[in-house]
């Protein structure tokens, strides 16, 4: 049980203290605390976009870095992502209302022939936790499924996952089809899966290979930021 002097009343904290506390609470996967703090910041007149980027995304970045460095592992990261989703659920309708820039939308699935989905599921959960919208295609997706959904959903990112060495090459089929249709550059293409590596990602023409779910989130954020810069340039 918490000692009395450990007790922190969120509403009594200054803005700076509160955002710092939110980063801690995200790290510990405390969903209710994140929801409460999100409401407090809204009441204090913060824009939904500032809460998203300066508190939630900033906090998840720390979680992602510690996952990458082998300090946190999947169970902790999923709890953190779940807490983040609690805050996101409050902010999402407000973000739409205020016309704030979106984090980005990703269509994700395992490629045709591949039925191994745990890695894909982890990426989807962490991307959602980082504020991205996710359209999960599930397993065993043919090229049409990726491209039709990406077009219909207005996605920014196509994410492909494969665990088998026999199904990895299908990623190239998807990318080659995009090239044929002249839509390759309309999307950021991220690939991942245990047997892949950077060399393979380059060889098939993906934008990036993502070693794990944390890298996927960081890479997606990077590419989306570059895309925004290009549009304003």
């Amino acid at each position: 049980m918490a000692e009395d002097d450990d007790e922190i009343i969120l509403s009594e904290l200054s803005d700076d203290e509160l955002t710092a506390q939110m980063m801690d609470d995200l790290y510990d996967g405390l969903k209710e605390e994140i929801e409460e703090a999100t409401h407090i910041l809204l009441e204090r007149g913060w824009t939904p976009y500032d809460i998203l980027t300066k508190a939630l995304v900033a906090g998840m970045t720390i979680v992602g870095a510690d996952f990458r460095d082998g300090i946190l592992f999947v169970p902790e990261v999923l709890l953190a992502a779940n807490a983040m989703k609690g805050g996101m659920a409050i902010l999402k309708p407000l973000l739409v209302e205020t016309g704030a820039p979106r984090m980005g939308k990703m269509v994700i699935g395992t490629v045709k022939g591949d039925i191994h989905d745990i890695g894909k599921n982890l990426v989807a959960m962490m991307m959602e936790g980082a504020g991205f919208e996710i359209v999960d295609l599930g397993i065993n997706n043919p090229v049409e499924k990726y491209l039709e959904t990406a077009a219909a959903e207005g996605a920014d990112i196509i994410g492909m996952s494969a665990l088998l060495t026999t199904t990895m090459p299908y990623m190239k089929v998807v990318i080659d089809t995009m090239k044929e249709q002249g839509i390759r550059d309309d999307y950021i293409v991220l690939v991942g899966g245990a047997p892949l590596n950077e060399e393979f990602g380059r060889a098939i023409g993906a934008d990036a290979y993502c070693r794990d779910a944390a890298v996927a989130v960081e890479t997606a954020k990077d590419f989306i930021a570059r895309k925004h810069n290009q549009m304003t340039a």
Partner: protein
Amino acid sequence: MTDALSRLLETRDWLLADGATGTNLFNMGLEAGEPPELWNADQPNKIKQLYSKAVDAGSDLFLTNSFGGNASRLKLHNAQNRVRELNRLAAEIGREIADRQDHPVIVAGSMGPTGDIFAPMGTLTHELAVEMFHEQAEGLKEGGADVLWVETISAPEEYKAAAEACLLAGMPWCGTMSFDTAGRTMMGVTSTAMVGMVDKLTHAPLAFGANCGVGASDLLRTVLGFAATGTERPIIAKGNAGIPKYVDGHIHYDGTPELMAEYAVMARDCGATIIGGCCGTMSEHLRAMREALETQPRGEDRPSLEDISARLGGFSSEDDGLGEGGAKRERRGRRRS
């Protein structure tokens, strides 16, 4: 000790397990995306061939074609109502091949992960996991498996659920985890933590260890971690035949039969008793491993990490997660415990 594996372990100080199931089946024409377990019913001759390849190459023990044979995995192919049947068939075919040999060969009923994530983040509960594994275990038992073989597990909760299911089925079992994330399992379990968990189980496995993961070197580092705890329980080492490489549009594992032979002997020196391969390990690898285990003497000492990387290649991460590593983030203070 009444089960066949325990009896065999009493007479031998190492056993050769089998190699890859998936890699072999794909070479035999399995279409990517097709669940291999359906072949137990539709292509039994090919499954016989799969098992025979391992036995003919010298395996003392082989795994049944039932890795994805739990309700959660088969549901992806709308075959969740065939769990019992497909597992029974997997073991029956295995029994037939094993009984044909003039020496004892163990039929190990393979049980892979459910693929689900445990609550609160995922949907899987202990009860559900036990129920799924138990259903599969009963099918494998019915088909005549000597022992159940739980493999490629990442979450400790799932390993424990499998143990309970094996107990419910009244079957001896072995269980390995996949250490593929900086020396730990995806869910953060270290080699030492696994030994601790295994020791606490009510229905402890006959043998435990590591399979799949990242290449032969990493796997042996994990085995050294098991052995360093001083555990008396037999250790299993089933590593991949190197690392998959993409060359001219094709994928192949870079582990040669010579490398896997070296790996097998080193695995024994590291403290493993049951030694086999995983993805990419074919008959020619198994034959080389068998020959090396039979002809090469045991080493005086356990190989060092330097020996392993010098002979089998470098590690995928700097350490095995057992060191001090990075400290968790400093906390400002918690609101509740």
